[in-house]
C-alpha cells in the first residue's frame, strides 16, 4: 500500500510538470505572450505566430513522448509492467 502511494505521488509530479509545459507552450507562448514574442523572428515567422500555429503542436508531441518515457521508467522502478 505504501509503495502504491509513493507511486501515485511520483505519477502526479510527472503529470503536473508536463502539464505546466503544455500550458506554457500553448496558452502561454501561443496566446498570452504571443504578441510580445512576435517581436522576434525565426526564419520568415514571427515567433508568437510560429508558436500558435506550429510550435505548440510540436511541443505537444514531445510532451507525450517524454511522458511515456518517464512513466515506463517509473513502472519499472515499482515493478508494475502494466498488464
Amino acid at each position: 500500500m505504501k509503495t502504491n502511494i509513493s507511486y501515485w505521488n511520483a505519477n502526479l509530479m510527472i503529470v503536473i510538470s508536463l502539464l505546466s509545459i503544455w500550458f506554457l507552450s500553448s496558452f502561454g507562448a501561443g496566446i498570452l505572450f504571443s504578441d510580445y514574442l512576435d517581436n522576434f523572428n525565426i526564419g520568415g515567422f514571427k515567433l508568437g505566430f510560429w508558436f500558435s500555429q506550429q510550435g505548440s503542436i510540436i511541443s505537444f508531441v514531445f510532451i507525450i513522448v517524454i511522458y511515456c518515457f518517464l512513466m515506463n521508467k517509473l513502472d519499472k522502478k515499482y515493478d508494475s509492467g502494466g498488464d
Partner: protein
Amino acid sequence: MDLQVLTYLIAGASFALYIGIALWSKASSTNEFYIAGGGVHPVANGMATAADWMSAASFISMAGIISFMGKDGAVYLMGWTGGYVLLALLLAPYLRKFGKYTVPDFIGDRYYSKIARFVAVLCLIFVSFTYIAGQMRGVGIVFSRFLEVDINTGVIVGMVIVFIYAVLGGMKGITYTQVAQYCVLIFAYMVPAIFISILITGNPIPQLGFGSKILNEDIYLLDKLNLVLNDLGFNNYTQSVRSKIDVFCITGALMAGTAGLPHVIVRFFTVPRVRDARTSAGWALLFIAILYTTAPAVSSFSRLNFINTIHNSEYQTTPQWFKNWENIGLISWSDKNNDGIIQYGPGNALENTKPIFSNKRGENGERLVINNLSTNKNEIYIDRDIMVLANPEIAALPNWVIALVAAGALAAALSTAAGLLLVISSAISHDLLKKIFRPSISDNQELFFARLSAAVAIAIAGIFGIYPPAFVAQVVAFAFGLAASSIFPVLIMGIFSKRINSAGAIIGMISGLIFTLSYIIFFKFISPELNASDYWLFGISPEGIGVIGMLVNFFFAIIISSITKPPPEEIKTLVNKIRQPS
C-alpha cells in the same frame, strides 16, 4: 485520363479496400464488436485514432477557415491537438486500466449509479449525433463535386459503405479500415501541399516553406501575404484580431472537448496494456500533427494563390476551376462596377452572406444572384470549404492529385462517421439495454442489438445528411463545448478524486450541460442579433463558453459531494485499482 474517370477509379479502389478489410475482420462477439478484442497494436491504434479524429471538418474545412482567420485560426490548431495531451496524461491510461467497453461504463461504475450512466449516455448521444451529421454532409459535397452525382445519392452511397463495415465488423472492422483510411487521407493531404509549397517557395516541406521566401522574390511568404492583404484593406494575416480571453476560452473548450469525446476515448480501450494506451496516444498525436502542422501552411499558400489568381483579372479569362465551383454554388461573382473585372476585398459581397442564385447568366457569363449587393467593393463570395478542395486546381496540379484529394476527403468523413456510429450503438446496446433496461440478455442478443442500433443510427445520420437541419453546421462546433462541460470533468474527478460521489457527478454533468447549452441556444437561436462581444459573459463567445460550463460542472460536483455522503468503500478500492498500471 479524364478527371471524373480517374476519381471514380481512385475512390472506387479505396472503397473496395475498406470493404475487403471489413470482411476479413468480422466481429464475432461483443468484446470484438466494442473494443476489437482488446488486442490492437499501439501504432495501429494510433493511426486508427488519427483517422477517427480527423473528420471532414479537419480535412476539408480547417485550412480554409484558417486561411480567412489568419493567426486566430490557431484556436483550432492548438485546441484540436492539445486535447491529446490531456487525454494521454489524465484519462487514457486510467480508463484503459478500468478496462470495460464504453465511456458511460466508467461513469456508471465509478459513480455507482444507473442515473449517472443514463445521463452520460444522453450526453454521448447528443454530442455524437451533432458531429455525425456534418460527416455525412461532407461525403455528399465531395460526391457532388468530384463524381458529379446528386448530393443525396452521395450520402446514400456513403451510408451503404459505412453500414457494411461498421455493422459487420464492429470495432474490429472499423479499426483496420481506419488504419487504411489514415494512409489514404494523409497521402492525399500531403501530396498537393508539397506540390504547392515547391511551386510557391521552392521548399518541399510545407512546414518550412510556410516560413520561407517566395521563389525568385526577396520577401518572406508571410510578409508578402500581409502586404497583399493590407493593400486590399484586410488586417495583417499574422496578427490576432479576437480578444485574448475569447481565444483562450475557445482553445480551452476545444482541448477539453477533444479529451472528452467518447469516440476518441474508446479507442484507447482497444490496446492490450496500460502502457500501450500511453504510447498509442503519442502515436495518435504524431499522426495528427503531420496534418495539423501542414494545414496552416496550406492556408497561407492558398490565400495568396487565390488573391493572385482572382483579384483584378477579367472574369472571362479566369481558369476553369473558378467556373466549376461557381456552377456548384460555392463561389459567386457580382460585377458591382460593371467593368467585367473581378475585385476582391474585405466584407461580404452579398447581403445575407450566402448567394441565392437565379437561373440567369450575366453579360460575362457569370451566374446572377438575387441577393441584394452590399455597398463595399468586394465582388466575390467564396465558401471557405473549397480552399482545400480547389487547391490542386488553383495550383494547376495534375488530375490524379485532384482525384486523390477527393478520395482523402471521403476517407476522412467515413472514418469519423464509423467511429461515432460505433459509440452510439454501443451506448444503446450495452449501456441502455444490457446495463439498465434488459440485464438478462445473452452476449449474442447484445451483439444483435449492437448491430441493429448501428444500422438505425446510420439511417438517422443519413437523413440528417440528406435533409440537413439549418442548425447542423453551427451545432457541430458546439459539440466540443458540450463534451467539455459534461463528460470531461466527471471523468477527471472520477480518477483524481475519491470524494466525488454519485449526487455530485450527476448534478455536475447536468448543470454544466444546461449552462453551456442555454448560453449557446440564447446567442445562436433566440437572440442572434445580440451575438457580439459587448453582450457576451466576460467577453466569451458561445464557441468558448464550454470552459465556463466545465468550471460550473466542477464547482457543483465538489460542493454537492462535500455536503452529501462519501462514496462507499468499494469505490475507493476501484479508484485505487485504476491508479495502478498492474
